[in-house]
């Protein structure tokens, strides 16, 4: 394997091998080239980057801890499990890292209005948070179905001063929220900055969001070496759009570490009810990028399905598509049931209530830990906390005793 080359994507045109690119209407091209140039300049500006780092430290509460899950590891009896505690970050998930960066970039570009799409509401809350902090107006597009399912986060966004726009087109879920955000952006492109919440969308978003999220992996790599004295044998993260996974994996791509992306298998990959775009989908173009999608033979996009609203998306970031094809990362499905079991184990054995999204990563890690010796170390991205999911999980446990 030619590892050192793997992290060098995207190429100058925004492609990750055959994936990525810029599949958008002509009206947005100028905005995307402007964004690409502004982001390149900002990255090279020490003042911008030090403001970004300072805000992550003082506002977002970074670095987040690396935490050894001793009782959980003993219970499984295999490899040792370490948790990268993104649930400890401000707003309760890794999503804040990305919005701090894009919020500062929006301000630098002189844009006073930000928009975002959200499914579970975590990215919407994070965007509303940064908009309040930076004094910008904020509109969050959210599927009407999700507005109903994620009422606490809708309330949070409104308290933070954001306008939540319920989207009733298509299936009224995350993909439709992203459709509507793109439509709004096309109309208001001159004054509006679109803060995309994951490593998907047209170039430069996949690379930009990865670069803003790599702080997860940079910290975790240093913490593993300092606290454990070695690198992990395996990294595990859940994959919705794939931003917490790219953030964790990216700084380790050249290391001899195996990597596992946990996709939401819903009721099972052999049913139509899942959200596993790589394990159960095929290549195609959606929301600006070529990647793996859930779709039928004639290219119509399927509705995704998962107990976890944050994984309920029929696509995946294009860099994951490439890492899958190259064999650098393995992608496996985790069902609703497995995720809920892992959720309960973490609550009982470690006193941590994880997000349902993160519970998919935990379930995959637990599965792997059982197959590996105690001398192995597994690093899991605990991408968020589960407060938002309590009502959901209680209902699930009642219906599936």
């Amino acid at each position, binding site marked *: 394997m030619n590892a050192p080359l793997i992290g060098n994507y995207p190429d100058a*045109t925004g492609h990750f091998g055959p994936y990525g*690119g*810029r*599949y*958008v*209407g*002509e*009206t*947005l*091209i*100028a*905005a995307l080239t402007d964004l690409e140039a502004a982001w390149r300049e900002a990255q090279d500006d020490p003042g911008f980057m030090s403001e970004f780092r300072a805000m992550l430290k003082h506002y977002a509460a970074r670095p987040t801890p690396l935490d050894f899950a001793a009782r959980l590891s003993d219970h499984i009896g295999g490899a040792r499990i370490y948790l990268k505690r993104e649930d400890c970050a401000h707003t309760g998930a890794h999503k804040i890292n990305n919005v701090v960066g894009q919020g500062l970039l929006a301000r630098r570009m002189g844009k006073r209005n930000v928009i975002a799409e959200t499914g579970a509401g975590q990215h919407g809350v994070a965007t509303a948070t940064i908009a309040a902090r930076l004094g910008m107006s904020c509109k969050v597009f959210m599927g009407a179905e999700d507005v109903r399912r994620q009422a606490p986060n809708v309330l949070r966004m409104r308290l933070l001063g954001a306008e939540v726009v319920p989207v009733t*087109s*298509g299936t009224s879920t995350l*993909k*439709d929220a992203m*459709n509507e955000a*793109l*439509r709004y952006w*096309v*109309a*208001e*492109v*001159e004054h509006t900055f679109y803060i995309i919440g994951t490593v998907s969308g047209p170039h430069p978003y996949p690379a930009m969001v990865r670069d803003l999220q790599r702080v997860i992996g940079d910290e975790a790599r240093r913490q593993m070496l300092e606290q454990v004295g070695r690198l992990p044998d395996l990294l595990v993260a859940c994959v919705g759009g794939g931003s917490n996974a790219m953030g964790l994996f990216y700084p380790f791509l050249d290391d001899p570490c195996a990597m596992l992306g946990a996709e939401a298998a819903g009721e099972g990959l052999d049913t139509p009810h899942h959200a596993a775009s790589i394990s159960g989908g*095929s*290549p*195609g*173009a*959606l*929301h*600006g990028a*070529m990647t793996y*999608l859930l*779709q039928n*033979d*004639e*290219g*119509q*996009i399927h509705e995704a399905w998962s107990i976890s609203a944050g994984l309920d998306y029929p696509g995946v970031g294009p860099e994951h598509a490439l890492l899958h094809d190259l064999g650098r990362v393995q992608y496996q499905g985790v069902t609703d049931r497995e995720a809920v079991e892992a959720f309960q184990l973490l609550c009982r054995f470690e006193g941590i209530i994880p997000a349902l999204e993160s519970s998919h990563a935990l379930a995959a890690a637990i599965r792997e830990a059982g197959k590996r010796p105690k001398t192995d170390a597994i690093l899991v991205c605990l991408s968020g906390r589960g407060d938002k999911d309590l009502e959901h999980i209680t209902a699930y446990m009642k219906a599936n005793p």
Partner: protein
Amino acid sequence: MNRIDLTFTKLAAANRKALVAYLTAGDPDFDTSLAILRTACASGVDVVELGVPFSDPTCDGPVIQAASERALRAGMSLSRSLRLAAALRETVETPIVLFSYYNPLFKYGLARIAEEAASAGVDGMLVVDLPPEEAGPLADALAGRSIHLIRLAAPTTRPDRIRMLADGAGGFLYLISRTGVTGTGGLDYDEVARHAALVKSLCPHPVCIGFGISHGNDAHALAPLADGIIVGSALVRLIAEAPAGADLPGLVAAKIRELRDGMDASCVS
């Protein structure tokens, strides 16, 4: 000669402008859609844009989104859109442009779509979310066939890029009149005139203006600025809003005559 080129050559010779009509394939169902298309071609439409319905039409406003949903619910797909094009081609010589998002074409197979579109009598393809930077594979698949890949320019497109788009354009250049998605209204005639003049000065091919054109008045104001106008949502809306049992082909034909009259009133010399 490609039917699109032939049409623009004839129109130019007669000092007339092109009326390009967008309709979603299979809206509200296959047979009615075919009847509407035939009537439209007989009522003054110079070029048909046949929209392939897509589950996630991010460049479209509510009117065409709803048409896409109606057509998909009625079982429409890319393969059936091609059958509709072929059926229309049996009775008319009007140029047909297949209007699509990229994913249905990509998933179907580019070589396959190129071949089947050619045998259905399609003369052009317009892929709304496929800028030239990503269009290489489709352009390769269409090479050697008499199918133009139609390009779009937007109000946000800067002169260098307009030149690049114009240089590679086939058939005609689709000039988007205003920022935003498809839909009726929101036109600022002066703004459109300014941008259209710039684009016309840089483009050696016919230029047609679309997005937001709803009435004879719009047609009257915009037709003189370019080589043609494109009307979509204003026609599709008639299908959505007609009472059950209405004569849909007749309603669409009346609207087309209104637009045609508006254009001709401002463009006869």
